[in-house]
């Protein structure tokens, strides 16, 4: 195997190289680079990702040829931090878990880069865009390939930075810029928890077991020595960090706003990769979480709530990207639901399938937006399927996948999660799994509903835009954009089969692949019959959702308005996104601003006053000093000078340059000496 393992470093290095070149060119030329350079950048940026992808693929293939326990490879680049006994190495580490993420990041990343070359073709700052995108890929790869938490945190912050930069990519629009800031700040709150978490972990590990090695491998063996409450605190803090990055309640609010960025960014960062960093982090430290059932329970509840809330909001949204954003939040809720049940493999499986179909949906949405001349409101679309058939077909496949229609990837991963949720007993609340499962099931139905609503409103029916001309001008996107769509569509359709559950006669390959590196709960009782029943139920729910959407938006398009009016309060609540932003504004932001004002006043009135007082006192003392200086010190100096001058004035008369005078002095002195010696 070790042939490819020596080239691990290339995986993050290639995007870094791409970033450096792009950033250099962008820095040198500013916004308006020559067209030739733009083309070169459009060629280079996907190419570097492709290099990483092939290296990753090579390593993956070599891994396949090894036994379960020998698959992990690592490469130590250099000793990064050495503080006392603490030592953090910049070591790249690839095992079954991280290789899955590497392949997703580079594979999907490559497709999105390719798509971007078409999507961003006319943008002035395309090179800057690719610089950010490459940097993001680099940071994300560092995140998943990190050998220890500190290095992971570097990637963690790096992706946060790139997310901020790309959301605010069109920073000239204040709304977009502030969306970037919101994402950054909200993430920061989560990061705060994460930082405290791993500091506590370092301290605890050192205190209780004396280990100073913070690599995941060594942590795995020593966390057992930490007391339960301590570990629970750490894991809760880690989860809090994950809620920021992975958009869970209470910190999910930044993700819908993050749609301000270019659509491929939404696809790559805010759907496929970055937002799953929280899932990855928890899966990576599954050995901690599995030992803290309380945290897992919290995760389950939060995740179920997130999935449900986000899905309900998605029903009423009219912005095509907002719908997908809330859908992403909801799907992330599913992933955490799996984690909360200890089914890390199911979570990672869903990460993968979600990466495919959600990237597909976002890219499809981007294609729609581009075709419809930057129109994002689905109420003003309709009937687009004839105009943009490729986009429509791929988007349709994506919708089927996310809605959980049997045979496509979303169905398998979602069902796996639901089954695991249902079958994993909870030690605190025995009824909880049932509720969680029910929530998940309902959410699946809602998901199916809002996705088909989106599909129907966008592609079916009549065009609802203002003028016919706009409709006539709708055109299919270029090949650079449709090819990624097609590839992703295929992946969305078939990728589910690597996780084909045993109840359907499959092998659940992904589970077997990941299981050795993840800490897992004991396998629940195998009950294929029950699993099949539940599966049928969820299929039913999915179709029901789709059917409802069909009825409401194809057969009787007038009904939704009636329903909205009938249940106006609920509709308003959902349309207003539960007013979470407003609540945060009122409960957290406004008091903070008030406190800021108070502090400002305090600053002005007390601290400034004190400072000013000090200044006044100092000034007064200085003045006294000045007087003393002038009168006494200067006076003394001047008097000495004056006295010297006076003396010199006397003496200089002696020295008048006349030789005769000197002769007089000589003779006079001689006489005096004579008199002194002889007479006196």
């Amino acid at each position, binding site marked *: 195997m070790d042939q490819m393992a020596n080239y691990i470093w290339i995986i993050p290095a290639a995007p870094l190289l791409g970033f450096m070149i792009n950033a250099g060119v962008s820095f040198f030329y500013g916004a308006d680079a020559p067209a030739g350079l733009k083309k070169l950048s459009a060629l280079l940026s996907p190419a570097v990702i492709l290099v990483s992808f092939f290296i990753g693929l090579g390593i993956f293939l070599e891994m396949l040829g090894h036994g379960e326990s020998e698959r992990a490879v690592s490469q130590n680049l250099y000793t990064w931090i050495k503080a006392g006994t603490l030592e953090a190495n910049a070591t790249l580490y690839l095992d079954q878990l991280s290789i899955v993420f590497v392949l997703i990041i580079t594979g999907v990343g490559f497709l999105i880069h390719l798509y971007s070359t078409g999507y961003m073709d006319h943008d002035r700052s395309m090179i800057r865009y690719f610089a950010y995108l490459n940097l993001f890929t680099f940071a994300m790869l560092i995140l998943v390939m990190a050998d220890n938490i500190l290095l992971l945190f570097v990637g963690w912050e790096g992706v946060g930075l790139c997310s901020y930069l790309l959301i605010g990519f069109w920073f000239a629009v204040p709304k977009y810029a502030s969306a970037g800031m919101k994402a950054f700040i909200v993430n920061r709150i989560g990061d705060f928890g994460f930082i405290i978490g791993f500091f506590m972990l370092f301290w605890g590990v050192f205190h209780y077991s004396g280990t100073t090695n913070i690599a995941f491998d060594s942590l795995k063996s020593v966390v057992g020595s930490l007391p339960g409450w301590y570990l629970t605190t750490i894991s809760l803090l880690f989860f809090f960090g994950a809620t920021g990055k992975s958009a869970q309640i209470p910190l999910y609010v930044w993700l819908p706003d993050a749609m301000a960025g270019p659509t491929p960014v939404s696809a790559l960062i805010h759907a496929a990769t970055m937002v799953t960093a929280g899932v990855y982090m928890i899966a990576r430290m599954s050995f901690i979480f599995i030992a803290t059932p309380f945290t897992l329970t919290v995760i389950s509840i939060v995740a179920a709530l997130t999935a449900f809330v986000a899905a309900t909001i998605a029903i009423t949204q009219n912005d095509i990207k907002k719908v997908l954003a809330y859908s992403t939040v909801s799907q992330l809720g599913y992933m955490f639901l799996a984690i909360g049940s200890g089914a890390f493999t199911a979570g990672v499986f869903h990460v993968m399938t979600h990466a495919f179909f959600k990237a597909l949906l976002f890219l499809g949405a981007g294609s729609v937006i581009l075709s419809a001349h930057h129109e994002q409101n689905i109420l003003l679309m309709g009937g687009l399927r004839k105009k943009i058939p490729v986009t429509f077909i791929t988007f349709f496949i994506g919708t089927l996948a996310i809605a959980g229609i049997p045979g496509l990837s979303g169905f398998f991963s979602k069902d796996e999660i639901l089954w695991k949720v249902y079958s994993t007993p909870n030690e605190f609340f025995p009824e909880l799994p049932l509720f969680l499962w029910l929530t998940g099931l309902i959410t699946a139905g809602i998901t199916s509903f809002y996705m088909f609503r989106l599909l129907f409103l966008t592609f079916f029916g009549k065009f609802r835009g203002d003028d016919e001309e706009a409709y006539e001008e709708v055109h299919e996107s270029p090949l650079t954009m449709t090819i990624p769509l097609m590839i992703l569509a295929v992946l969305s359709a078939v990728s589910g089969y690597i996780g084909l559950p045993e109840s359907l006669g499959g092998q659940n390959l992904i589970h077997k692949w990941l299981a050795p590196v993840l800490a897992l709960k004991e396998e629940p009782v195998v009950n294929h019959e029950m699993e099949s029943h539940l599966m049928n139920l969820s299929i039913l729910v999915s179709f029901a959702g789709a059917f409802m959407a069909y009825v409401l938006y194809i057969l009787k398009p007038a009904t939704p308005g009636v329903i909205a009016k009938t249940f106006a309060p609920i509709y308003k609540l959902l349309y207003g996104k539960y007013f979470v932003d407003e609540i945060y504004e009122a409960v957290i932001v406004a008091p903070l601003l008030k406190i800021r004002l108070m502090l400002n006043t305090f600053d002005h009135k007390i601290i400034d006053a004190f400072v000013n007082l000090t200044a006044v006192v100092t000034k007064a003392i200085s003045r006294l000093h000045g007087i003393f200086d002038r009168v006494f010190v200067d006076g003394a100096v001047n008097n000495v000078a004056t006295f010297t001058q006076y003396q010199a004035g006397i*003496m*200089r008369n*002696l*020295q*008048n*340059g*006349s*030789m*005769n005078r000197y*002769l*007089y002095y000589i*003779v006079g002195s001689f006489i005096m000496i004579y008199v002194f010696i002889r007479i006196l």
Partner: protein
Amino acid sequence: MNFLFFEGISQNPNSYLILAIIIFCAGIFTVLTRKNIIGILLGIELMLNAGALNFIAFSFFRHESADYSGHVFAIFVIVLAAAEAVVALAILLAVYQQRRSVSTDDISDLKG
């Protein structure tokens, strides 16, 4: 005042000493009143000779046996006077080249 007797006046030390004082005073007067540097030099030569005369006189009258230290000193004085005259004249000529004057009134650069 026992030196104003004529017998053996040439054998009386005081007569030489008084003569030396007269010459020395003439030298001092010359030095103090002359404006010309060469004049000052003449005065100095007079004073030096007065000194040398004293040396010889004391050498003659102060020793029972032969002791010629005084003579040696006189010779040194003469030699050094010659040397001094050489240097003084060299300086004088150098100054004269620059200033076209040997008057002490014109040479007062050391005025403070």
